[in-house]
């Protein structure tokens, strides 16, 4: 079986769950005998295939900025012009390239991801008559509290056009139904984690140690946008510091809320206990997971939340938002309501103060991470392929 996959980002030049998912999924699919032609924008950075069965086809010459989500403040600048234009350009050229390849490559189906690949999937699907599987890693409803109609319309189109939909959680399934998707068309396939990658226990980061000075360390890791809840993290940090002044809070990731967050840390009087790490490379990511005593994911709306699984596979106790996909499926985590700052702080303090809790969460988290493999994600995805092919045969 050969699949034409319409992607967007691909590690190492990725900033979201979509990129990680595509990398891990494609290599597992290839291991299971599926050939994948992966269409993506030309990055100029030379993305390499990791498997002989995986062919990377870079289309569109337009210089495209990394994966940026809508934020209220910048919707009409960066996002509105550059990115939208780039997406449009990419989709057009991607559809052309896919149709061109289709004759020779004999694809069984088209598999697209998120709103970024909707137009290309629609166009190529119409021309090639291939069945379409569309995965949604997030929807506009998750990314912002004020959804942009334009994007909602594209997502709606994607939802209507696909033969089968993959949602990364039951939570995302519900969002797709808000977009008008027929429930019978949606399959939930959870993301996974490469447990080997993060369980090395490598905490040898000298620079971090110097700053840490023996303090208990709590980690936030994600884009600094409203959706990820970094503001709630700081407010909870303030409460924790009131009880345990000897605690360090790491804020890893970049995003347009950074200046606001720095100001908030100053205003709350906790700047000496908060360290902003900015962009973190994959290597450093492993180090900070294992260096942290606790990982907190306070997202207001998290379709899945792969980072929680990564932290769990590193053996780090996690506190995750109840409004997250990963929270539906793991057992070894504490859940919080993102708006309940006292509750969040109390749980953070409990993990830091009581070793029995941290140990138990760590063990249960590792167990969860072992069960949530990308192999399982790939197997479930293949089942969806088989289903759509069974249906698609006329």
């Amino acid at each position, binding site marked *: 079986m050969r699949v034409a996959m319409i992607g967007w980002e691909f590690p190492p030049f990725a900033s979201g769950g979509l990129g990680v998912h595509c990398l891990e999924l494609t290599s597992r699919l290839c291991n299971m005998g599926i050939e994948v032609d992966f269409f993506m924008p030309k990055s100029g950075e030379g993305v390499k295939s990791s498997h002989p069965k995986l062919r990377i086809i870079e289309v569109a010459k337009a210089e495209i900025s990394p994966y940026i989500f809508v934020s209220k403040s910048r919707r009409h600048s960066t996002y509105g012009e550059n990115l939208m234009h780039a997406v449009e350009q990419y989709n057009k050229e991607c559809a052309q390239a896919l149709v061109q390849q289709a004759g020779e490559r004999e694809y069984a189906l088209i598999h697209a991801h998120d709103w970024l690949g909707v137009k290309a999937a629609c166009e190529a699907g119409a021309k090639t008559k291939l069945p379409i599987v569309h995965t949604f890693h997030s929807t506009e409803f998750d990314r912002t509290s004020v959804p942009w109609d334009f994007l909602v319309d594209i997502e709606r189109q994607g939802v209507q056009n696909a033969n089968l939909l993959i949602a990364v959680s039951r939570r995302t399934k519900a969002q797709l139904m808000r977009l008008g998707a027929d429930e019978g068309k949606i399959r939930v396939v959870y993301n996974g984690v490469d447990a080997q990658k993060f369980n090395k226990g490598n905490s040898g980061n000298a620079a971090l140690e110097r700053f840490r000075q023996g303090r208990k360390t709590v980690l936030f890791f994600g884009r600094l946008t409203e959706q990820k809840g970094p503001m709630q993290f700081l407010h909870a940090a303030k*409460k924790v510091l009131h*009880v345990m002044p000897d605690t360090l809070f790491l804020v890893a990731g970049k995003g347009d809320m950074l200046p606001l967050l720095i100001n908030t840390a100053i205003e709350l009087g906790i700047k000496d206990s908060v360290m902003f790490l900015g962009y973190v490379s994959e290597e450093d990511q492993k180090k900070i997971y294992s260096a942290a005593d606790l990982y907190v994911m306070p997202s207001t709306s998290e379709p899945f939340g792969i980072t929680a699984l990564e932290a769990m596979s590193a053996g780090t106790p996690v506190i995750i938002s109840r409004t997250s996909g990963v929270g539906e499926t793991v*057992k*070894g*985590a*504490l*859940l919080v309501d993102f708006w309940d700052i*006292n*509750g969040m*702080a*109390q*749980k953070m*303090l*409990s993990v830091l103060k*009581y070793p*029995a*809790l941290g*140990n*138990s*969460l760590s063990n*249960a988290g590792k*167990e969860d991470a072992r069960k949530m493999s990308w192999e399982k994600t790939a197997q479930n995805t293949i089942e969806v392929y088989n289903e759509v092919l069974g249906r698609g045969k006329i």
Partner: protein
Amino acid sequence: MRLKRFSIFESHEKSVRERYFDNELNRQILEKVAKKCYLPTNALMLELLQKHPNMRVSYSLTGVFMEQCKMFAPYLLDSFAALAKTGRVEFLSETYYHSLSALFPSKDEFVEQVKLHQSEVEKLGGKPSVFRNTEAMFSNEIAYLAQRLGYDGILTEGIEHVLGWRSPNYLYSVKSCEGIKAMLRNYKLSDDIGYRFSAKWWSEYPLTADKYAKWLSSLEGDCVNVFMDYETFGEHHWEDTGIFEFLRCLPTEMGKHSNLEFVTPSMLVKSAGAVGEIDVPHVISWADMERDTSAWLGNEMQRECFGILQELEAPIKELKDEELLSAWRMLQNSDHLYYLCTKSLSDQDVHNYFSPYDSPFDAYVNFRNILEDLRGEVKARQKA
């Protein structure tokens, strides 16, 4: 006995009782279950006792339950007293606080709780002579303690690794105890009603009273101890499953078999002899697949909390502070530890079913912070 969603950021102005226990929720739960289960079942039992002069039944009510009845539903306690008045209803003895105090190294607290319970039951019109420890936890040592307290019988679970090839349908003596007889719960026949009654997957579904009476009649042995949650009637199995009809018909159907008669535990231990001896050096119970104490003390979080409960005994008793003593005892309820259980797969489902928390970790956060608060309270009062 539900705990408050305790907040470490809340002020300390309220009493510990108000800070730790959710009495409003406890009242709601008691009223709800009373309406669905306790009251209709008690009414039915009374009706059956009046109709069948040979019928007998026994109950195991915790002290905390009776205390909650007094506070929130005195009419419910009256209905138990009315049953006791028939003279054919017996109450078992147990720890007042449904605690694991039998496992404390010092047995003083256990003895106090059993005596407290005994006096409450006497007020209700009973005089227990058979002891049933929390969750049927049992060992040679616990049997010995019960014997020292004057009980003639003790009830526990009839499990294979204790009995071997032997049947639970007899009385047994207990190693290194003299005079106390062990009654063993027939878990299969108990679970047929308590657990499987409304299970459509069960090959014996639907269970009828005549079928069940035939099963009882065909058994070999001196007795069969059928013991289950009272919530079986109307709560675990709702009224529309026919559970009340089953109960209503059971005495009539049993009456059709000449080899069956109702006895109370005290009648049984007086009339039947022990046919052999059981030896239980390690504590058993009726919980989970393991039938040991692992449902309450199986993991690090549980053992830590249990350790703190034990550690607080001496300082709290020294303070002679009724409020702290009662809060500490309420916190000994085995459920608080049960919710922290992290066993996986099938058993976890049972734990989840009964738990008001998201997860065992969430339960630990709440319980542990309450224990820490109590610890702080003890220290503060020691200084005062």
